[in-house]
């Protein structure tokens, strides 16, 4: 999983393209599902999201997905679950202060974001996640709220 997660960061541009292409389809499908079946399919959809994003990004199912704003690197893999990283403890080799064998999630995030078309999105302030959403599907919530795949809702303040 760690290797796949790091592969996603190295190929953030390609992942972004796939993500941007697939997200509207996924959201449209889920919107239709929601209209037809209500919440009956929430459990299998959540399971499916967990399998796909878990395999590709080591997704922790925080339910507040910001992958497209963090260089396709899931920030919940940071031991401090920092959403606006990195912290000041990164090792000289770019590895994590807490897990010395792991590359700092946010060093990867900044590097991944610079490969992406929407490179500046990492500069947006992401407020701490809503813990009520933990374990739930970010896709379903976006579909129900009619949102986009870009995490504009958690951006609390304008840039400098």
């Amino acid at each position, binding site marked *: 999983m760690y290797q796949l997660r790091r592969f996603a960061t190295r190929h953030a541009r390609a992942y972004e393209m796939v993500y941007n292409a697939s997200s509207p389809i996924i959201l449209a499908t889920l919107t239709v599902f929601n209209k037809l079946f209500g919440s009956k399919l929430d459990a299998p959809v959540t399971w499916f999201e967990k399998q796909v994003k878990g395999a590709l990004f080591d997704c922790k199912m925080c339910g507040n997905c910001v992958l497209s704003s963090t260089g396709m690197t899931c920030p919940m893999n940071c031991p401090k679950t920092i959403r606006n990283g990195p912290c*000041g403890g990164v090792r000289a080799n770019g590895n994590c*202060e807490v897990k010395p064998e792991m590359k700092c999630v946010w060093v990867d995030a900044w590097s991944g974001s610079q490969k992406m078309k929407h490179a500046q999105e990492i500069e947006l*302030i992401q407020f701490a996640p809503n813990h009520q959403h933990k374990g739930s599907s970010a896709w379903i919530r976006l579909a129900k709220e009619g949102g986009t795949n870009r995490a504009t809702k958690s951006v609390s303040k304008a840039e400098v």
Partner: protein
Amino acid sequence: MNAQASQHPPVDNLGSPLPEAVGHVSQGRFERVLRQGHFVVTSEIAPPDSADADQVYERAALFDGVCDAINATDGSGANCHMSSVAVCALLSHVGYSPILQISCRDKNRIAIQGDVLGAAAMGVCNVLALSGDDVSAGDHPEAKPVFDLDSISLLTTIRTMRDESRFLSGRKLDKAPKVFAGSTINPFVPPIENRVRQLQKKVAAGAEFIQTQYCFDLPVLRDMMRRSVDMGLTEKAFILAGVGTLASANTARWLRTNVPGVHIPDELIQRLEGAENQKAEGQKICVELMQQCKEIEGISGVHVMAYRQEKYVAEMVRQSGVLDGRQVWAPGY
């Protein structure tokens, strides 16, 4: 004078809070001195492993006359000590200008917002938002790490409470906490090229002052400051460079190996090794760093970190001359 009065410095009206001033967010002396354009000096207290208030006052008194504000660390290195809120309340009571460090490691947003209100009620005018070291670094590695917020979310929280007079939930505050908000930055660890953009994020989130990690590598600091000035960040936030004294070459090696985020160039360690009196050389280096930081455009002050060497801070600051002869307020002056 009874024994208690001699141990506790007298309450003096020249301390905080000061009268409200236009364009100032707090009534604290730290913000006032910065906005007056002075080069400031701050240092930090290691809160005692004790329930004795006098230990706090004894530690603070070491900085009398040379420090504009005193940071009270919040379980630094994830080790348990007296709480930073309590240290700041004690210091505020006698007129000092403490900086309340809040680490996101130990408290969730409910506890933190309560602390910000409580601290402000007790006269604390400055808050520093930190993510905090992980619990694994300290003496209670079995503790549950909280990290509900991170430093930028914490800044947003403080600014929401202060500027919108409400909790994050939206519930109104009868009186907003008028605190000067700050955070930290470490210019010396990866991703070095993006650290200035993270600084930009912190300023956007509401940081009005920044205290950096130890600056022993001035070329890197100069580069970040040049970019900060170009981006206009130093017009929005006061940057204080972190400086420190190294007791010996071995201490320096231990620090950079064991304390996350500390970067000390090899040349500096060699200079210490070659010195006859390593401790004196470490202090000389610290004095030089203060003087050099003062010359860097955009730097508004220095933050002196001298863990277990606090008694040398006053002399080093005086030697450096960075205060330009300014007499800093202290109880009894």
